[in-house]
Structure formats: structure tokens, C-alpha cells
């Protein structure tokens, strides 16, 4: 069924008449969004560390990268949420900051080096300890590690798979939402009524 051999099937679709204006606007704006380089919520150090975390959670090729840490920084700077949080976690911004401190503590405890100085594999090992609730360091006495990891992973994954470039990788083409003929009769009939 799925026989589109283009390397950029979603981007091709967005250029076609098979996408409604609302959908095209949402996706082309997301595609055009430049990566965040100057964080508004995190410090530069925190932001770079978060970028490393995102790279471990969702490895990406160098030539086509979806900015994952940027939208998280934007959300936290705007103070918006997804509508709920675990009662035993602090507010989202504080939880992220504690996490970024905590993985540094865990890196120092296990490797005598800060997180940023670890190899990719070592960073992944630290994240695995967080996911399992076994990371060393005082932060983890106040931040439930496994709960926060779930929240972090869900947010990163949602940012990634919302992006047209990620959707191309999984063969998703549901944004082709323009039916033919478009919007039959609706407005015309409403006019007839009066």
C-alpha cells in the first residue's frame, strides 16, 4: 500500500493540494521553526545538557535533526502544561532543573566527571539508572526518578513525532486531509437557509 518512494513524502504532500489550509499552516510553520539556540527558561549549561539527554533518548542523524530541547524550553518559559502532573513531582520547571542537576550528580558519583563529559554510552547508562529509579545522588531523594523519566520521555517523544521529518520516517501520511471535492455544500447550503 505504502509505495511513496520519495525521501520527503510529507514535505511533498504539504506542497500539494491534498492538505487543508489549517493543516498546511501548522506543519509548514513547524518545519520552518529554527532550532532554539538561546534558551529562555534554562541556563545555557542546563540547555546543552538537556540537548544531550534528548540525543540519547531519540538518536538522530546529523543532517536532519528535529529540535527537541527547544520546544521544551519554550513550553516551560510560557508556563503551560499538559493538564496534569503526578502529585509527587514538583512543578514541571523545577522537576526538569532537579533532573539536570541529578544526572550531573549521578555522573560524578559513577564516573568522577560531569554528565556532559561522558561518552554517549555512559550518558545512556546514567539515563537508564534514572529510568530504573537507581541513580545515585542527593537530588534523587527528593525527585521520584522513574516518574520524572516517564514524563520527560513522553514529552520528548511527543515533540519528535509531531514533526513532519519524524512522521516521514514512520510512513505517516494522515495529514493529507483534503477531501475531493473540498467542503461540499456546507456554506452554500447555510446561505440558502436565509
Amino acid at each position, binding site marked *: 500500500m505504502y509505495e511513496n518512494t520519495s525521501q520527503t513524502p510529507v514535505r511533498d504532500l504539504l506542497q500539494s493540494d491534498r492538505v487543508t489550509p489549517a493543516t498546511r499552516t501548522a506543519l509548514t510553520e513547524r518545519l520552518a521553526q529554527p532550532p532554539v539556540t538561546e534558551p529562555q527558561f534554562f541556563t545555557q549549561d542546563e540547555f546543552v545538557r538537556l540537548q544531550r539527554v534528548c540525543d540519547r533518548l531519540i538518536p538522530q542523524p546529523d543532517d536532519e535533526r528535529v529540535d527537541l530541547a527547544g520546544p521544551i524550553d519554550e513550553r516551560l518559559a510560557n508556563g503551560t502544561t499538559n493538564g*496534569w502532573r503526578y*502529585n509527587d513531582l514538583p512543578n514541571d520547571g523545577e522537576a526538569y532543573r532537579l533532573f539536570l542537576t541529578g544526572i550531573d550528580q549521578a555522573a560524578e558519583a559513577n564516573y568522577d566527571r560531569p554528565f556532559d563529559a561522558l561518552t554517549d554510552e555512559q550518558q545512556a547508562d546514567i539515563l537508564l539508572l534514572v529510568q530504573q529509579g537507581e541513580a545515585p545522588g542527593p537530588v534523587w531523594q527528593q525527585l521520584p526518578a522513574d516518574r520524572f523519566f516517564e514524563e520527560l520521555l513522553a514529552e520528548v517523544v511527543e515533540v519528535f513525532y509531531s514533526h513532519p521529518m519524524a512522521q516521514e520516517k514512520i510512513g505517516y501520511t494522515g495529514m493529507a486531509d483534503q477531501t475531493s471535492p473540498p467542503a461540499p455544500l456546507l456554506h452554500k447550503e447555510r446561505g440558502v437557509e436565509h
Partner: protein
Amino acid sequence: MTNNDIADAVVIGTGAGGAPLLARLAMAGLKVVALEAGKFWKATEDFATDERAQDFLFWNDERLSAGNDPMAFGRNNSGTGVGGSTLHYTAYTPRLQPDDLQLRTDFGVGEDWPLDYHQDIEPYYDELEAFLGVSGPSPYRWGPARRTAYRYGPLPVNAAGRLMEQGCREVGIQTSPAANAALSAPQFQEGYGWRSACTNRGFCQAGCNNGAKASMDVTFIPLAIQYGAEVRAECFVTGFERDTSGHITGVVYEQNGETKQQLTRNVFLCAGAVETPRLLLINDLANRSGQVGRNLMAHTALQIWGEFDDETVPWRGIPGAIISEDTHRANGLANYPGDFVGGYLLQSIGVMPVTYASQMARGRALWGQDLHDAMSRYRHVAGINILGECLPYAHNYLELSDEKDSRGLPKPRVHFSMGENEEQLTSHANQIMRDIWTAAGARNIWAFPRNAHVIGTARMGTDPDLAVVDPDGRSFDVPNLYISDNSTFPSALSVNPALTIMALSLRTADKFLNGLSTTH
């Protein structure tokens, strides 16, 4: 109407609980105003086929989730905007079965409803299904025989539905196309115009963009406006003015940063089972029974996912195409004996990509290359889930926390832990669904535990010491306050709540109007 005119009724919330009665009252000639916290969208122009862009449909003010099985809110089960949660419901509209109303009689636990199916609910189902344009099979296999056929035949069955049919056939479970409040043929809707037939876009949960789905914004709201109702969007209700006799005389709300008040003779509170009790608790209102916020229930809604050799294109088609109610009671299937109170329905499910990825993150905790590998098979995924009974427990309740939201109001904290009955029921369903999916050829089967639909936080009953509202939805404590939403349900039901919320909404409106005509 100005704020100083006295409305006959102010309706707070425009979802499945508020919109039907708003229309009913307007058609009876009453001066009615609806106050809705969210915006008034024009779905045909504003709604994108994109989950992230549609985040605005969800109630994203933070709620605190406590207990052993903390409830997800936001996208999981709460909406905002004119139309409320119907903007993102899947339009799944099974009828309750009469025995759903008598759990206590049948099992000695839970609660009976003070209502009779044939007298109090069935006539409204008949009316609603025709008005909304529900597409479904006639006859329908389970429950009392229908008096009329569904207005339209069932919607096309997607891959998940076909696989469920196949798997169920092999394990000996009966299936049927499901009833969905989405059109399988165009329908003219009074006050709105033509609603198109469903295009199988599969984005019901992110908002329908062509009017096919019977959300309130394309059905009862335009009808209400046609008959003179005023719908004020982006109005967040914070409190009430009352006279010395305890009657409400005005509704206080915030609009564009300004505090306003609408004078009124009656109030219909229809803000859903979180915001309704929250508003009552904040104002210490209608809670002589102490039951506001108590008896919180949520449907058991375990999902089973699997990957199939053939492509399923899981975002296509009405998500819940196929149903089985053979599990409506534990003794429904001879080869699957169960031991629990109540029962559940089985449903095939499609899924949008971000929702699926997010659930993989939470449910399977996959990341790195493992996540890429699993998501590379997204086009081969299909799901099946349940919607099941939940008993009320003292340990499940909503309270006000000490944390404040951006308006300075306390955030709600919701405690939820499954009880033994929910564990037993879910475990029964887990086995059955895995067997169905295995028989259908699924690989990499995994389970996503979930609870959805908050219910019961302002329960109806006949005893003012044990219930918040009477069987008509009227507050025992505040004579001109009515509640119409899923917070009044005495029990959770083994079906999705939307159609029943609408039925009770129309019934409350009729009872209220009857009261007016007998007193004047």
C-alpha cells in the same frame, strides 16, 4: 442580553451536559446564557489534522494526580471550548443496559440509579440518536430491542475493526459494528446547515473538521443559538451571588481579565466531573451532604496493542468501529469465567501517531534505537480496549490543593486507586484481549493501562444526606441550582458516558420546564 438583565438561566459549560439543555430551554422561550471557559472555534476552518496543533482542545490547566493509579488529564479526558469534551470525544455512543442502573440490587455493592431505563432514559436515547445522526447497526445485538432503527447504517470498518472481528470469531466472542455519533451520510442540522459524511480521516480525538462528528458545536449549540440562546465564550466562572434564602442570584465570571456578573433566576452547572465539584468546593456550595468531590470513579480502559503482518494504517477510519458487549457481565462468556461486579465492553481502536508514540513512551518505556524500531512498525499497529465498570470508594475523591492556578484558584487534586474489583475486571479483560489479538495474528503484544472519564463527584440520589442532587439534577441545598454532567452519575456504567450525559441533560431540562409550567 446585558449582565444586568436577569436571565432565566445561566448554563456553565457547553459540553454534553450543558449544550442539550441550553437548546431545550431556548426552544421553550427562556432567556438563556451559556458561559464557556474556552473559545468558540470554527472547526471547518480552524482545525488542523495534527495532534500538536490541536492541543487547544484540551483542558490544560494543571491538575494534580494522586493515588496508586494517578489519572492522566489533558488529552486523556478533558476538554475546553464551545462544545466541551465532545470536541475531542471519539463519538462512541453505546446505550447503557438497564442492569447498569442497579448494581447494588444485583451485586450488593455500588449504587442503584433512582431512574428507570424505559421511562427516564430510553426516550431520550431515541431522540438523541436521531438528532445527532448516530450511525449504527439495526437491530443491535445487545440490550433491550430498539424501538427505532439507527438513523444511518454503520460507518466503514477500518483494519483494527476487521482484525477484532477475525480474532473474536476464533475465540468465540460475538461482535457488531459499533454505534458512533458520526455521520455515514450527510445530514441537515437546524441552525448549522449541512454536516458532511465522515471522510474516515480518523482524527475524532483531535477534533472533526467537517461536521461529520456530532460534537455540540455543530448540533445543539447552533440549535440553541437559532432559538435565541446567547453563548459567551472565554468566560471562566469563579463564584456566585446568593440572597438570604440561599438562592443564587448571579454568576460571577472572568472575561478578558475583567470580573463580571450575570444576574439570573436559575443556574445549570455543567462543567464536568472535575470543574463542577471544584467550583462547588471553592464556593462551599451545595455540599450539605459532604459528597461533593467524593465517589470519584473512572472507567477501566485497558488497551492492548499489537503489530500485524499487513498494514493497518491505524489513523484511518472511525477509531472505534467494532464492539462486543458479550463481556457486559462476568458470566457472559462460558470459556472465560470471571468474578467481578459489573462488566465491560470491548472495542477496536485506531490511533493517531503522536498519541501512539506517547503511550509507547509511558507504557513500554522505550527509547533510543528500540523506540525507532518500534515506531517504524506504526503502519502495522492495531488496538483493542475495554470500557468497564468502576465502583465508588472512600479512597477515590477530588479535593482542593494548596497550590494555586494562574487565576489564584486552588488546583484540584484527584486521588484514584483501582480497587480489587477493577483489578479483577481488568485482569479478565487483559487475558481475553490478548487471546483475541493472538488469534488475529498480532505480534509484540503489549498492554497500556489506562483509566478514563471522571465520574460521580456530585452524585444524584433520593437522600439529601447521601447525594448532592435529586434524580432530576436539582441541588438539595440550593433550590435554583441544577447539575448536568457526568458528576451526577451514581455508578460508572459499563459504557462510554457521552450519550447518557446528553440524555440526562434533556431530561433535567424537561423536568425543570415542567416545574415552571406547574408553578405559574
